[in-house]
């Protein structure tokens, strides 16, 4: 893929970066979503069959970050803060203003944080480059995440789970359960039958 891929319907004069793999059946609303993208991984983002990323989705992916969206995954305006790995499963539905983060991007040690803030102020791009521990985030197949939710580093959300609007998910969520609240807590079980045929 060279020569730059643009989108005929795009309002933003950008391109899809070379190491972003978009299935021919997947949809990207605007290349503004890659405004903060700086991954140098061979495949920084992989969008599967029928996956979509709508307006407001921001792939804030650091140099070593890798993000994957499974088949039919629908991301409707999430901030994906990824310095290592964020996996979004097939059929996942992710609402607006959601934050998925695999790193806090800075050290919890005050002196190291200060050092990074002094460094970043000397750069033109002003992008924080780590110092923070990375712990992958995994959003399972068929998960539904409501608006304004934050998913913190290291969290795995099991298959079929639902996260209520405005929740902050601090620990793993069991498959086929509903969680809600800040911090998020178990609300109830869901039917784990996933076949709809």
């Amino acid at each position, binding site marked *: 893929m060279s020569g730059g891929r643009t989108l005929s319907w795009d309002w933003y004069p950008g391109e899809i970066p070379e190491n972003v793999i978009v299935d021919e059946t997947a949809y990207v609303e605007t290349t503004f979503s890659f405004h903060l993208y700086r991954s140098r991984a061979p495949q920084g983002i992989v969008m599967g069959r029928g996956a979509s990323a709508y307006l407001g989705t921001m792939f804030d992916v650091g140099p070593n970050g890798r993000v994957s969206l499974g088949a039919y995954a629908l991301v409707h305006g999430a*901030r994906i*803060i990824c310095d290592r790995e964020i996996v979004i499963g097939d059929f996942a539905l992710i609402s607006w*203003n959601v*934050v998925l*983060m695999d790193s*806090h991007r*800075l050290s*919890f*040690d*005050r002196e190291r*944080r*200060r050092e990074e*803030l*002094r460094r*970043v*102020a*000397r*750069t*033109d*791009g*002003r*992008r*924080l*480059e780590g110092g923070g521990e990375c712990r992958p985030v995994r959003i399972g197949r068929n998960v539904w995440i409501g608006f*304004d*939710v*934050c998913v*913190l580093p290291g969290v795995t959300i099991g298959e079929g789970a639902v996260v209520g609007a*405005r*929740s*902050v998910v*601090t620990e793993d969520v069991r498959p086929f359960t509903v969680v809600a*609240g*800040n*911090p998020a807590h178990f609300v109830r079980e869901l039917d784990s039958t996933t076949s709809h045929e």
Partner: protein
Amino acid sequence: MSDANHPVSGGRWLDGELPANVSVGDGSILTADYAFKRFRSRAGRALVIGGHCTMDGVHFALGEKGTVRIGDHCYFTNAVLLCERELVIGDYVVIGWNTTIADTDFHPLAPAERIADAVACSPLGKGRPRPGIECRPVVIEDDVWIGPNATILKGVRIGTGAFIEAGALVTRDVPARARVLGNPAVVVGEMP
């Protein structure tokens, strides 16, 4: 934009001319064309930003009497600063994406006063005085780190080195070096 190590000198707003009552220290940059869309302060030195700060997409929504002080080496991403009176932020403060800080509730609590306020704020309320509205300064001390999607409400003082987790809603003072989480935010641990 590149990550080249070019020193930046002289504070500036990349998307326009700074208002006259705003001062920005050396090596600090502000971005976003909307940064001052809601800036109405007539205070002499309404907004003072120190040196070597990054104010990326920050909304400076200051009321007529609002004053905001921000120290050196701060890093804010798409924060919304709503200030009717006073907001004081120290050095090395980090504020994550889509965090809101407000030193006022914007409207009175008492129902009758709120009706008067609704009328005064309406297109028919031209010139009608608004009832008194509670404002209490917000103070954020040095080395505080606030995660994305957090909310800090009026009158709160956040002690030096505290960490506010993503999505937390802070309604009370936070002790120095505490880690807080939740709605309402509670202390869940300590910073190293």
